[in-house]
């Protein structure tokens, strides 16, 4: 627990605590939609991935996609949550241009997944538990385009009916940092099990952020909700702004109005929605076109057994079995692709060396190229081979960095690069001795200094000279050993 950490915000009249709850909408990675056979692929021409069901044609009826049920169960299991073998689909009734049925099929009173817990990890190695209130299945809406025509809004129903998991947290977060860690953790989990691609830019994961402030220890304050935030950074900025705004109002003797606010990422501020905020009355009732959703516990057990290793388990294993520090392990498990990459590199090699290469060198190179690990020019096998070349003294660690730079550019195998560029380490003591003798002969002053013990670090200067003479290829161990012998 990060119990020692204080998240309080100082106001003019004392400290404030910000209370944050998050609703994450995660699009399920299914081929077809939740209640229709139309494709879920992103980026198609408008209204080309729309069935008559998605367009709410008269007389059309929903039939549920088993894959979506399965992914909701798997996600629930990954959140350590209660799976309800009996759940009910309700209609949430409201009018909006991109809601063709005039209602959204969702789950209200009896969701498919109940309470759970996830653990947040922070860079300092501390953790925090956050409660999951529920996860339910629901339909996504279509898309409204407001900026294509001066007097009209355009409606594209391609997204209409795509399956969403709405994951609702308890109001357990106390800072923008914690909210960010929560969102990252949810994204990591869904990506590990493959129930959602977690792509926030394409909108396949979006967050509704509920923020309120209070004096420490007091009752919850009135909250405001910022809907459909599509980046973790924006979510954090919205929280910072909103908390400060609410504190300012309260300190000026005002009250907070419960409302939905818009986060403007360009101006970095939240504001009341321009459209008149009206009292919502969704008139939920069980969808009479569907029966309750029922399945056997044995299916849940099967899915649980087939679940891949989850990030927390993987992290614990990397720490326990491979002795990695929590910081390294945390970074390596943050994305399933990184973990997979790392585990190939580390297999049969020194775990910490492998971790350093991935976290430091590889990430820096990828960052510089704006690439993700899945399109890394250096394969995990190649990175492993590079480490092997260091381990078996074919090259030094310093030369390895040069080889790696070439690998990033050419995607060539490290052995090939070492061979072609003649970078093999000089381990032949005779050759090194020759170089040392020459340097000693040419630099009597430094020899005297070393012998006089005035500056024992002068040995470093000699090492540098030998490495220079050998173009970095001399085995540093051999150089050190021989220098000490010669300089006596």
């Amino acid at each position, binding site marked *: 627990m990060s119990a020692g950490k204080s998240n309080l915000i100082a106001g003019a009249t004392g400290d404030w605590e910000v209370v944050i709850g998050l609703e994450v909408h995660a699009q399920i990675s299914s081929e077809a939609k939740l209640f*229709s*056979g139309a494709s879920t692929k992103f980026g198609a021409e408008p209204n080309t991935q729309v069935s008559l069901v998605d*367009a709410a044609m008269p007389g059309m009826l929903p039939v*549920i996609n088993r*894959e979506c049920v399965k992914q909701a169960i798997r996600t629930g299991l990954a959140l350590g949550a209660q799976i309800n073998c009996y759940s009910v689909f309700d209609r949430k009734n409201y009018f909006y241009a991109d809601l063709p049925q005039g209602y959204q099929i969702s789950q209200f009173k009896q969701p498919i997944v109940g309470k759970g817990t996830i653990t947040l990890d922070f860079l300092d190695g501390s953790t925090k538990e956050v409660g999951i209130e529920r996860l339910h299945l629901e339909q996504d809406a279509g898309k409204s385009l407001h900026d294509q025509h001066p007097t*009209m809004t355009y409606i594209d129903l391609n997204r209409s009916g795509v399956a969403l998991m709405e994951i609702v947290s308890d109001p357990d977060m106390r800072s923008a940092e914690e909210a960010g860690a929560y969102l990252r953790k949810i994204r990591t989990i869904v990506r590990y099990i493959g129930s959602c691609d977690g792509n926030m830019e394409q909108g396949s994961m979006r967050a509704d952020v509920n923020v309120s402030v209070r004096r420490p220890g007091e009752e919850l304050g009135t909250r405001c909700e910022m809907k459909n935030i599509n980046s973790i950074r924006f979510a954090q900025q919205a929280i910072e702004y909103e908390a400060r705004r609410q504190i300012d109002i309260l300190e000026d003797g005002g009250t907070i109005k419960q409302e939905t606010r818009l986060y403007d990422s360009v101006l970095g501020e939240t504001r009341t929605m321009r*459209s008149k905020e009206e009292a919502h009355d969704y008139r939920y009732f*069980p969808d009479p076109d569907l029966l309750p959703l029922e399945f056997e516990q044995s299916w849940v057990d099967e899915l649980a057994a087939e679940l891949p290793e989850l990030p927390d388990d993987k992290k614990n294993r990397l720490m326990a079995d491979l002795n990695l520090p929590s910081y390294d392990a945390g970074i390596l498990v943050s994305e399933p692709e990184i973990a997979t990459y790392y585990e190939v590199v580390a297999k049969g090699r020194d775990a910490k060396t492998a971790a350093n290469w991935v976290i430091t060198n590889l990430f820096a190179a990828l960052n510089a190229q704006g690439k993700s690990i899945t399109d890394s020019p250096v394969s995990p096998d190649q990175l492993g081979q590079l480490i092997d070349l260091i381990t078996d003294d074919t090259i030094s660690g310093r030369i390895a960095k040069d080889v790696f730079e070439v690998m990033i550019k050419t995607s060539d195998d490290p052995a090939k690069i070492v061979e072609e560029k003649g970078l093999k380490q000089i381990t032949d003591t005779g050759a090194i001795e020759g170089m040392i003798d020459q340097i000693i002969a040419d630099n009597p002053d430094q020899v005297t200094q070393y012998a006089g013990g005035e500056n024992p670090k002068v040995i470093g200067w000699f090492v540098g000279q030998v490495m220079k003479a050998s173009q970095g290829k001399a085995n540093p161990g051999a150089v050190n050993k021989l220098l000490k012998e010669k300089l006596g």
Partner: protein
Amino acid sequence: MSVDKETVARIAHLARINVPEESLESIAGDLNNILAWVDQLSEVNTDDVEPMTSVVHARLRQREDVVNDGGKRDAVLKNAPETEHGFFAVPKVLE
């Protein structure tokens, strides 16, 4: 429970049906008659009764995750009062 003009106006707005001011009173009367009549249900004790979810005694069937629909924009748009560039078009929505 009695429905007044304001309530009729509120539910008419929820239902997105324009009800002219002069009709509110008579609709309220109609609704009150019906509600008074259905109120006889309150004489039945239903404390231990499960609400019906479906008269069908079956399990919800789940279909396979196969794309077998869509790709019929013309059929989707053909009855629309107004379309533009493959979109449905509606009066501009201000957010």
